[in-house]
């Protein structure tokens, strides 16, 4: 029986990076749903 091909997770870049006192926050506004 053939093994099921598995798609890797999507590679996504943040839409913006916000600098905060606690460090940078990478914001993904519309990340891809699986």
């Amino acid at each position: 029986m053939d093994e099921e091909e598995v798609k890797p997770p999507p590679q996504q870049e943040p839409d913006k990076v916000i600098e905060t006192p606690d460090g940078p926050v990478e914001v993904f506004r519309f990340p891809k749903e699986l």
Partner: protein
Amino acid sequence: MPIKSFMYPAVRVDVVTLDPDQVVTHSRAVLDDVIGTIYVQGTILPADDRTWPAIVNHVWRPRLSWDTWKTAEGPAETTIKAGPEGCQSVCLSRTRGQGRNVQHIALDGSAPIPAGWGVVVAYGTAIIGGQQGEQGNYFAPRDEDREVTGSGDLLLVR
């Protein structure tokens, strides 16, 4: 270390990774939208003298138990400190004012996903329908039951 904030329509997923001994302050306004949190690595400590419930990694902490350390009025903010090895947590927050039901699955092998539930990968790796997901990824709900394989912490959202 950066905070990763994934803003899905159904739920917001924040992956918070703190360096060793890093101190952060969360405002009440942010906490008010929190559905719950799961700690997945390291330890976290209170940074003040407030009573702090024991935090166990890989246990979903809904908002109700998160409230237990608050004063009657509720604090304007709370400050926490990572342990000597740092820590990582995944926090779910409501979007558009909508609360969500959340169920935690400690995945080790396979598990059923009932129809109508979305799946957040909080830790580890999950495969559903031939698609692999990792930390921060969200599998949208489907009309049919599904099976998930892999290992880690999954948060079912409805």
